[in-house]
Structure formats: C-alpha cells, structure tokens
C-alpha cells in the first residue's frame, strides 16, 4: 500500500483550495459530485490540444488517434470493473441514461404483463421512474423491498419480494441517502435462482470501493463519471455480452449502424450498437484519467480514509443534541454518506447557515422521494465524503452545525 498524505492529495484539487463566503471551503457534498484533480483536467486539455476528432470515422491521423483514445478508455473501464470484454462497456451520459437504456431496450422487449420488477425503497429516482414507465406500458408490477429499523436489509424481506414472476431486480449497491451498502452478491444469487436479472446501480459504490462485476455476478452495472473525479456527461453501462447482444438499440443514428438502406438498417456490433452519434471523447479521456488517479491512490487507502472520516463524523454528530441520523449508526457495511435531521430546523436553513461558514452540504429529498416518505422525513441534510476530506473539515462542520439552532432562535 502506498502511503497516503491527504494534504498532498488536496494540492491536486484546485477547486478545494478556495474561499467561499470569506471562509475556507469545506466540501461535503461528494455524493452529488466530486471535484476533479489536475491529472484529469490536464488529460482533457491535452486531448483537445493534440487530437480532437470524431472517433470511428475518417482515416486521418487525428481521427485514428481519437478512436484510440476512446477505445483505450473503454478498455480501462473494462479492467477497472473486471468485465470480460470491452464489448460489454457502453459509454453513456451518466447512470441515469444507462438505466433508461436498460429499461427501454431490455425492459420493453422482455417485460410482459404480470411480470414484476423489484427495487429497494431507497432507490434514487433514476432507478424508479424508468421502471414505473415500463410497468405502466406493459401492465406489469413494480415492487419495493423495505428496510429494517437499522436501515439495513433483511434477506427474509428480499426472499418475500423476489418471486418466480420477478424478471428484473434493480438496486443501488450503496444508498445515496442512508449510506447503507447492500449485500448485492447475495441478492443477485437469490434473484438468479428465481430467473430474474440483476441491475446494480453503482453510482455511489464504484467511486469508493472495488466493484467486480464477475464477483457480484451483476447482469448490468451503471455508474456516473462525475461522482468519481471525471467530468460530467460521461457514464458507463456494463452489461453481460449475451444480454446486450439480444437487446435492440436504444438511440438510432450515426455510429451505431452497419448498412443503411432507404427503408432498413443493420446495426453495428457491440458496443457501438448502443452509442449513437458523436461520442463524448473528452469525457471518456477524463474518466480514464480519473480511474488511473483512483488506482494510484488505491481503494485500500480510499476506504480507510473514508471509514475514518465517517466513524469520526458519526461520533461527533452523536455529541450534538437534537441530531437524528438516518442511516446505520455503526460502520458495518456503511459508506461515507450521512443523512441527518436537526430538531426544529429545516434542512434548508441548516444548509444556508453552515454555508455561511464555508461548509457545502446537501439539503432536500436527495432524489429519493419514496424513501423520504418511508422515513417520514420531508427532507434531510446530508454530508458525504471522498478521500480528500479531512477530520479538520468535520470539526469545522460540527462547529457550524452546533450554531444552527442559535441562529434559528432557539436557546440552545
């Protein structure tokens, strides 16, 4: 394991080293998006300064180079998630687009009347709304797996909800609200035994832990580059080759075709069948650089740092009276996301007040309204860490949080 020096790492991130509202920025909204290291920014700049062309078209030098860049990024992603073949890696805009691709291509073709699609109650809207649409079109059923008191999942409940009629089980490996990391491998095994396919939303897990699609036996995995140091606008869909092969294209147009006649078209091979139009080469280049950067630091270091930060933050939050934490209170199967409420204070006000101390956190429903309803919390505040955060930042946050109730007119 290489040594880990957070101060040194922070020098790589220009946006982290700035003042906001006259205070040093404390960025605790990494579940929304992460900041970008110079290594990633330079890779993109370099690409535009030296290459910049449409991949897959034209035989000129720049075009060939762009294709190489684009395809080597795909290969990097393949290796990163341990897929068997680069044909199984489709670039999308983000996790949301990848989930829509699966819903519209696989869902519309293979879901039939009376079939069931099962998700967790804690899913992000991007893993709920497309399925609502599919079950509506197909007269199928969308079912929810609920959570225990401790915000974890009971395999009993999983076995109750996944039945012989279940065709798709789609779940986030880690909740973006609760921080819970779910036993995806175990769930996948059970789902497969019932004949269902499993879609893993890795938006919150892939940036923080080693995700191995073969080990999980995931049929599909989706994630977004921007939550893992890469630019916005690049995301990944992994799918098992035999599934992708039998799925119809999602978007039609250039790049995804083989021969186009006046009335008919044959489609390109994987992965291009699913990548219509000029792709986001800049994003792919940035994603490759981001993966290289993450690998240089190493997941062992990343997880250790995030665990230290999360355990410390949980401990300090428990010190503050009036705080209620929505999510597991100990570190077992838990990621670096903590949602909380402060009695008598609306998350919106909490966010404004801590922002004046330089602290960026998220307030609201976190794109998980069904979960909010289930928790009976109209909104929560959320802090979320990445490996570049520090204990000192948590101290600043706790300090600012402890002042919120005073600002809102409470005695303490």
């Amino acid at each position, binding site marked *: 394991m290489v040594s880990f020096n957070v101060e040194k790492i922070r020098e790589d991130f220009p946006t982290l080293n700035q003042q906001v509202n006259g205070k040093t920025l404390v960025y605790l909204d990494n579940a929304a998006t992460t900041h970008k290291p110079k290594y990633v920014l330079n890779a993109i700049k370099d690409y535009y300064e030296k290459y910049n062309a449409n991949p897959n078209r034209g035989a000129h030098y720049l075009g060939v180079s762009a294709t190489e860049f684009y395809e080597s990024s795909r290969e990097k992603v393949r290796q990163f998630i341990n897929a068997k073949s680069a044909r199984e890696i489709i670039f999308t805009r983000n996790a949301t687009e990848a989930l829509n691709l699966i819903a519209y291509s696989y869902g519309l073709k293979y879901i039939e009347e009376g079939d069931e699609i099962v998700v967790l109650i804690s899913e992000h809207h991007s893993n709920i709304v497309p399925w609502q649409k599919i079950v509506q079109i197909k007269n199928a059923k969308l079912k929810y797996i609920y959570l225990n008191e401790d915000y974890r999942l009971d395999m009993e409940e999983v076995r109750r909800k996944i039945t012989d009629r279940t065709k798709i089980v789609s779940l986030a490996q880690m909740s973006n609200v609760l921080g819970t990391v779910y036993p995806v491998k175990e769930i996948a095994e059970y789902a497969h035994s019932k004949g269902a396919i499993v879609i893993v939303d890795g938006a919150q897990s892939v940036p923080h832990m080693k995700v191995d699609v073969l080990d999980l036996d995931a049929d599909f995995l989706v994630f977004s580059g921007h939550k893992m140091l890469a630019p916005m606008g690049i995301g990944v869909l992994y799918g098992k080759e035999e599934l992708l092969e039998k799925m119809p294209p999602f978007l039609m147009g250039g790049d995804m075709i083989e021969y186009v006649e006046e009335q008919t078209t044959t489609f390109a091979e994987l992965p291009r069948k699913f990548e219509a139009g000029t792709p986001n080469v800049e994003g792919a280049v940035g994603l490759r650089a981001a993966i290289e950067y993450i690998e240089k630091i190493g997941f062992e270091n990343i997880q250790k740092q995030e665990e230290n930060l999360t355990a410390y933050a949980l401990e300090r939050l428990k010190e503050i009276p009036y705080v209620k934490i929505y999510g597991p209170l100990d570190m077992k199967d838990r990621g670096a996301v903590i949602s909380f409420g402060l009695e008598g204070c*609306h*998350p*919106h*006000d909490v966010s404004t007040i801590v922002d004046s101390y330089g602290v960026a956190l998220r*307030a609201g429903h976190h794109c998980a309204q069904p979960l909010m309803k289930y928790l009976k919390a*109209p909104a929560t505040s959320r802090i979320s860490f990445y490996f570049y955060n520090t204990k000192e930042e948590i101290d600043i946050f706790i300090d600012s949080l402890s002042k919120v109730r005073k600002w*809102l*007119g409470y005695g303490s």
Partner: protein
Amino acid sequence: MDLNELYTELILEHSQSGHNKRHLKDANCTERGHNPSCGDDITLELVCSEDGTIKDASFTGIGCAISQASTSMMIDLIKGKSKEEAETLADIFLSMIKKEITDDEELEVLEDAIVFKNISNMPARVKCAVLSWHTLKEAIKKGA
C-alpha cells in the same frame, strides 16, 4: 446578504410563533403549494365571503424558516382585504423579489414582508420566500 439579515428577529418570530398555522373550520378555499426540490410544503386555507373579502386565512404544512415566515406575514397582510387587493399585494411582493420595484415607499404596503427585499442576493432561498405568494395567486385564480 449575511445571516443576520436573513434570520432576523422578525422572521424567526413569524416562523416560530405559529399564530397563523392552524386549520380553519369553515375554509372555503384551500390551495397547496410546494417546492419539491427543498421540501417546503404548505397548504393555504381561506375563508372568503360572498363579496370577495378574505375574512380569515391560515396555513398548515412544513418548511424552512423562510417559507414559514413569509407565509405567516402574508396571511397577516391579506386578512380582511378583498381578493383583488390581496392579488395586488402578491404582485408587489413578487416584483420586489425580482427587483422590479425597489422604492421603499412603494413597498410599504407589504408591511413586515418587506424584510425579504434582499432575498434575491441569496438565490438558493428565493423559492422559499415566494412560495406562499404564488400559492395565494393560484388560489385566487381558481376562484377562491
């Protein structure tokens, strides 16, 4: 805009006293307004008489201090006014927020609600301040 300007005594008093926060038994018009993105969710209740006077008004629901205070101030203001007058006040309030009206004399009619004059310096909170006023306009449009 700093916190002292935002969380003034007046705003905190309105958001916490809850003197306008209750159900009206004989409400003949209710209108829900919400900001899904931040979780402010209020329902405005009005008792309107035949001649178009707002005889009583209240609200229920949840939200941040800004949305709750703005709602409460608005209710104090519109009680006893005609629907037309209430709508005009809502328009003046919204124009103030957009900085279309800046003259304090012109804004005097808003009474306490004038404290939100500078909320546009805090773009993230504008929606909270205007929620109830839009809800009022909606209620009147639907023929409260």
